[in-house]
């Protein structure tokens, strides 16, 4: 019997991140991992999270993998890139939040500069989710990293203008986020593009739910987005990112369950998102990263 292979009229845009060793994501011509439908030109990649301060809330099983590097973001980034083979580093500027250290944009910029010198893999840079503070910090950091072609986040419907302008003037890509609402996601992309920001420098985030904590909502909205993108909706034909690690390690199962539960939780969550069309998975545990990289290889080959 003849196999029915869906022919899509459009493809997902390709976003290039990084300058020294740039990575290309996106470019899908069909649904991931369906033999014959998608050529998988750029297999999904894995970013590892690095904080600019020690993440106190992380459980010991997670912290122990990084040892003293947790206190030094540059060492931490090198560890992730060199030892754990992260494709990208996701720098979270947690110290800038007014409720933590309230570090200034200048301080954050210095950390960023050092990491950029220390590692050659591309960088994702995200703020602390405190909107006003983020605007000040990210504008400065985007300028510090000018020419490095990083991926900056996170733009939301209520707070996108400053970050968009900063990314535009410093040549970075941007993460646009709408919390499980495909219509707002599309609207936000239009608003960002209205500022003359190129659509092929946007990466989508629909918020990430961990296994057992809303994964299925994100999964189906990502799937819907991908179908719309492949069907020709230019404002939804962007690659997608998921912050898997932060969500998986926040669950009570990961924190208090038997040994290795957290790793399994992170792997299970990440695998689901791979199948829903994720292009970048931001992860925490080195073992989970190793597992998911194997899974990507196996799926992309199938």
């Amino acid at each position, binding site marked *: 019997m003849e196999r029915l292979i869906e022919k899509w009229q459009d493809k997902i845009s390709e976003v290039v991140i990084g300058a020294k060793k740039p990575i290309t994501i996106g470019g899908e011509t069909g649904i991931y991992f369906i033999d014959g439908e998608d050529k998988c030109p750029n297999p999904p990649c894995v970013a590892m999270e690095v904080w600019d301060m020690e993440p106190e809330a992380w459980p010991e099983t997670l912290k122990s993998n990084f040892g003293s590097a947790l206190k030094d973001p540059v060492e931490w980034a090198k560890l992730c890139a060199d030892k754990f083979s992260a494709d990208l580093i996701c720098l979270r500027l947690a110290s800038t939040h007014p409720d933590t250290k309230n570090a200034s944009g200048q301080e954050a910029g210095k950390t960023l500069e050092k990491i950029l010198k220390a590692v050659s893999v591309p960088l994702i840079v995200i703020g602390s989710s405190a909107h006003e503070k983020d605007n000040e910090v990210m504008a400065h950091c985007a300028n510090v990293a000018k020419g490095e072609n990083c991926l900056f986040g996170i733009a939301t419907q209520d707070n996108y203008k400053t970050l968009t302008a900063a990314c535009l003037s410093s040549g970075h890509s941007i993460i646009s986020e709408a919390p499980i609402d495909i*219509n707002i996601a599309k*609207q936000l992309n239009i608003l960002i593009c209205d500022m003359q920001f190129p659509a092929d420098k946007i990466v989508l985030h629909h918020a990430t739910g961990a296994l057992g904590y809303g994964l299925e909502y994100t999964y189906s909205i990502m799937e819907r987005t991908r179908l719309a993108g492949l069907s020709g*909706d230019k404002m939804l034909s962007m690659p997608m990112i998921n912050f898997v690690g932060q969500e998986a390690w926040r669950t009570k199962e990961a924190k208090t369950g038997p040994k290795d539960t957290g790793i399994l939780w992170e792997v299970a969550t990440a695998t689901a998102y791979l199948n829903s069309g994720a292009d970048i998975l931001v992860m925490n545990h080195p073992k989970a990263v190793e597992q998911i990289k194997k899974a990507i290889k196996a799926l992309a080959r199938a």
Partner: protein
Amino acid sequence: MFIIGERINGMFKDVAKAIKEKDKAVIHALALKQVSCKANALDVNVGPASANPKEAMEWLVKTIQEVTDITLAIDTTRQDVMETGLSLCKAKPIINSANANEEKMKNLFPLAKKYNASIIGLTMDKAGIPKDSEGRMELAMKLVAACVEYGIDTSELYLDAVILPVNVAQPHAKEVFKTIRDSKMLADPAPKTVLGLSNVSQGSPMRYKNLINRTFLTMAIANGLDAAIMDATDKELMDSLITAELLMEKQLYCDSYLEAY
């Protein structure tokens, strides 16, 4: 929705004059205007008054392609003019149009194969346009059969159920809607459906033409229409089209859905 811009047609006085005087600027402007208004293809018709239609077609196609490589729908009843037009197209062309008349099918379907063209098939034959949807479906079936016979993918066929002016043939519109719905069942992949939109308002007072066109278009979209030969530069018509597609869930809603189209 696949939009075929109708403006480059010798029936329009400005186009007839431009062909006669070889005034490229007029054609360039019309082509670019329609493309900027989101036309996916441009209809090219030299008009009835042309003294040398073959030469006129050649000039029109070449002139249009000086400013855009968009898909062209070669619109003529003459075989030689059709072939001249098709042979010059840079993008995959559209034949406008065949009908269920045996001789027409025998002449045009091989051309579609030869030039890898899509083909518009009118549900009419020597006897004219059937009065109901059943008659139209019979002819649609013949056109689908011709696709199979000549080795053309059925999704390359655009069935045109032929709308007649509402002022003289009022019962036809609902028969056309039914034909659009039913023709999806004729083959797998289903043939596409198209309409020459402006015909519906021919002869109606000028002040109602646009209203009739856009009301008819939204109703046709609700019945599953895939393509239309229409005036892409009519903003209200385009906005109605986009909104109808939105309501049919062909596009995802967002507050700026009109600009996002």
